[in-house]
């Protein structure tokens, strides 16, 4: 009898997911599913959930991360606007509804795990820098990002110097000489300069179970 109920419960759980009730914050229902679909283990998913709870309750305690809470988590202040925080939030927000549920959070962070496939990192970084989402990175976008980066770091380079840095970047990267960097060119560039993907890996994610211990015990789960 209890097995039958268990089956019914699972059926309802998957029906609810299909209906995309993403405005309803849910507790951590099925860490196994997320674990299967990301590079995280079940206990890492649970630890990540602890982090998520912390971030998502900072301004509005609704089990969801809004833009303000995201900025708060990144900069420890909600007063700071950042080109990158905006882009990153947008990329995390795969449902495009202006808020991050745990699933979006976990799937996006999975890309930053040291064990994530490099292709995922290459893809994510390309989309990150493709500010206008046109499928290629333009010179103007690169300049915008360089200027924003320097400003944030308190450095002031002359326009000439910036232009020459970008010239040389495109000389190397834009092998098709069309004034844009497409996915293929980005990939080659990154494979030649692996340090360009340094910010696509968060070592913290490897130790997350110790940083955010969770107190949920799943006796039926084996952790490989």
């Amino acid at each position, binding site marked *: 009898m209890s097995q039958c109920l268990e089956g019914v419960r699972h059926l309802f759980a998957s029906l609810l997911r299909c209906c995309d009730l993403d405005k309803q914050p849910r507790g951590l229902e099925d860490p196994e599913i997320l674990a299967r679909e990301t590079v995280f283990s079940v206990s890492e998913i649970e630890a990540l959930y602890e982090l998520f709870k912390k971030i998502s309750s900072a301004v509005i305690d609704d089990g969801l991360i809004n833009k303000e809470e995201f900025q708060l988590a990144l900069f420890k202040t909600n007063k700071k606007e950042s080109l990158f925080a905006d882009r990153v939030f947008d990329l995390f927000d795969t449902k495009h509804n202006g808020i991050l549920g745990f699933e979006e959070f976990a799937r996006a962070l999975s890309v930053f795990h040291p064990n994530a496939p490099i292709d995922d990192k290459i893809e994510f970084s390309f989309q990150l820098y493709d500010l206008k989402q046109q499928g290629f990175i333009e010179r103007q976008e690169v300049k915008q990002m360089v200027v924003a980066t320097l400003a944030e770091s308190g450095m002031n380079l002359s326009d000439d110097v910036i232009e020459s*840095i970008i010239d040389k970047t495109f000389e190397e990267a834009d092998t098709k000489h069309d004034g844009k960097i497409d996915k293929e060119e980005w990939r080659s560039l990154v494979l030649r*300069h692996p340090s360009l993907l340094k910010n696509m890996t968060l070592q*913290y994610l490897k130790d997350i179970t110790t940083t955010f211990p969770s107190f949920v015990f799943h006796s039926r789960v084996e952790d490989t």
Partner: protein
Amino acid sequence: MILFRNGNKTKTLNAFHIISLLEGFNLSSLFEEKKREEKEEIRFATTKSPETMVAKLESVATEMKFMVDKTGDESSLRMKRNKIGRKGRLGIMAEIWAVAPSLVVVEVKKSSGDTLEYNRFCSKQLRPALKDIVWTSGYESTPAGVVGCIN
């Protein structure tokens, strides 16, 4: 491409290096309690040449009783304090990046040892020693107390 040559290896920097290296785009702060200004990493810009920076860092290291290890990548320096501290010998790594002909960025991080010791070393010894070569871009001193220091 701006090249930094020291020995056989070169470390070239392009616009994307600048974006990913210096920037506000670093999700690791999601995991950290402290504000960025208080982080252990020191990054600063200088108008000295990469070779001058290497020499300067080496002399600072020797003065402070660190042993310098240059067996790795030519544009990074590893040093370990001779004295054994609370968690073994304090180790520092410095990476040197050439951004533009007159601009070099140095990034200093703790590579081993006790964090408190590292923080004390940075504020009491390292920062004062590097003060005269840090490039100022017209900005006020940061909470960390070093003029022109990034972060």
